[in-house]
Each structure stands twice: as C-alpha cells, then as structure tokens.
C-alpha cells in the first residue's frame, strides 16, 4: 500500500470512528451553544428585572435551559469516552440514514435561504 493510500485510509478511519467524531461534535456543540445560551440568559434576566413578580417562573425556566443546554455536550462527552463499548445493531442503520438525510436537507435549505437573503441584499 502506498503512503498516499495509507493516509487516505487513516483519514477515512478518523472520520468514521464514533469516538473521534463525537469529540468533534463536542467541541462544535460547545462553541455553537455558547452565544445562544448567553443571549437567552440575558433575556431572562431582563425579563426578571422588568417584572420582578415573574421571578417564580423565570428561575425554573432558566435552570431548565441550562440543563438542556448542558445535556448535549455531556452526551457527546460520554460518547467520546465510552463509544467503543457500543454494539450497534443493523436494525438502526435505517434510523441513522433517515437522520443523516434529514440533517442534509436542513443544511441544504439553510444554505439556499441564506444565499437567497444575500442575493436580496445585493439587489
């Protein structure tokens, strides 16, 4: 096997290894969630200061937001640490494929709509 084939194989392996892809997802998930979470917490704080009587329902809501936000990075961290222990059945291949296609259509639509917005801005 030539060195170029070997490096291509190792690259393919890297991108199909669940643990390593989970690490990528962990890093990107944390980076992506930082700004929306900060904005949401600031909005909730503003809502409390505007209406102190609403503190009773805003604080549980803020806790729920923090827990749900931390859930996804925690899940990817757990997958990164122990993804090797998984025995994935063939039955779930269809679900994985449907999920990947759903995300693919979502990204495609987002990019197309952003391109349309940019074109409108230029026009």
């Amino acid at each position: 096997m030539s060195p170029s084939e070997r490096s291509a194989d190792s690259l393919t392996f890297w991108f199909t290894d669940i643990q390593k892809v989970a690490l990528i997802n962990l890093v990107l998930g944390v980076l992506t969630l930082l700004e929306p979470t900060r904005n949401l917490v600031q909005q909730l704080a503003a809502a409390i200061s505007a209406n102190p009587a609403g503190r009773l329902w805003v604080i549980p809501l803020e806790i729920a937001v923090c827990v749900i936000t931390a859930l996804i990075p925690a899940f990817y961290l757990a997958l990164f640490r122990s993804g090797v222990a998984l025995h994935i059945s063939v039955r779930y291949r269809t679900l994985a494929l449907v999920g990947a296609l759903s995300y693919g259509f979502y990204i495609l639509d987002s990019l197309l709509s952003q391109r349309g917005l940019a074109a409108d801005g230029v026009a």
Partner: protein
Amino acid sequence: MGVARLFLDETANAATILLLLAIFRRATGEHDGQSLAPRFLRVTAQVAAIVFAVWVGISLLRFGFIPYLYTELRDIAIQNGQSTPTLSIFVLDFFKPLLMALGSFAVPCIVFKSCGPEPDPPTVDEAPSAAVGSV
C-alpha cells in the same frame, strides 16, 4: 447573523451527519445482550432521546395547526394589502424544525438502544455467598 456564526452552525450540523454516517458504518451485527456501556452514557443518551422525542412530537403537532394559521396569516395580509406567502413556503417553514428534530433524535436514540439492558445490581443474598465462594 454573521458569516462566522452561520459557518459554525452548518459545520456543527455537518458533524452530526458525520456521526450518523459513522453509526451507519459501525452498525454491523446484532446486540449480544451484554451491557458494557457506562451509566453516564446510558443516562445522558436516555435523557437526550426523551428531550428530542418531545421536540419531534411538538414539531409534528404543529402540522395540525397549519390550515388555521395559514388562513389567519392570509386574512391579515389581505387586510394590510400585502402579498401572502404560498402554502408550500408556509409548510416548508413548519417542515424544517421537524427535519432538525428528527436528525437530532436519531443519535441519542440509537446510542441508548445500543447500550443494552442495565446490569442488575447484586442482591443482598448474592453478595455474601459470592464472598464466601471466593474464600
């Protein structure tokens, strides 16, 4: 939304696709019934699967309100002399969150199902007998 922010979002979504494809490639055999997955992975996968299942359910429920909401929007637009969006664009706006919810639900659901049954904790009767057996 800045370009950097958009790039980061789409990269994160692409990474999720990569994870789903990695799962697709890894799914080769039947589950042997033994549980090797730690409790942390099992719990986070279960909670994430429940949260995303609720999200999928809410996204599906929203479809039931499309006729009512579209009629309302059309009436308001006609009153204000504005053009209404076509029904297909309106439905697409409801369809996008469902796609994202489905994609997000798939990963924790598959991982949780692949964790296998939780091992039973040793009962009080078994523990002393095992200790005696080892002596």
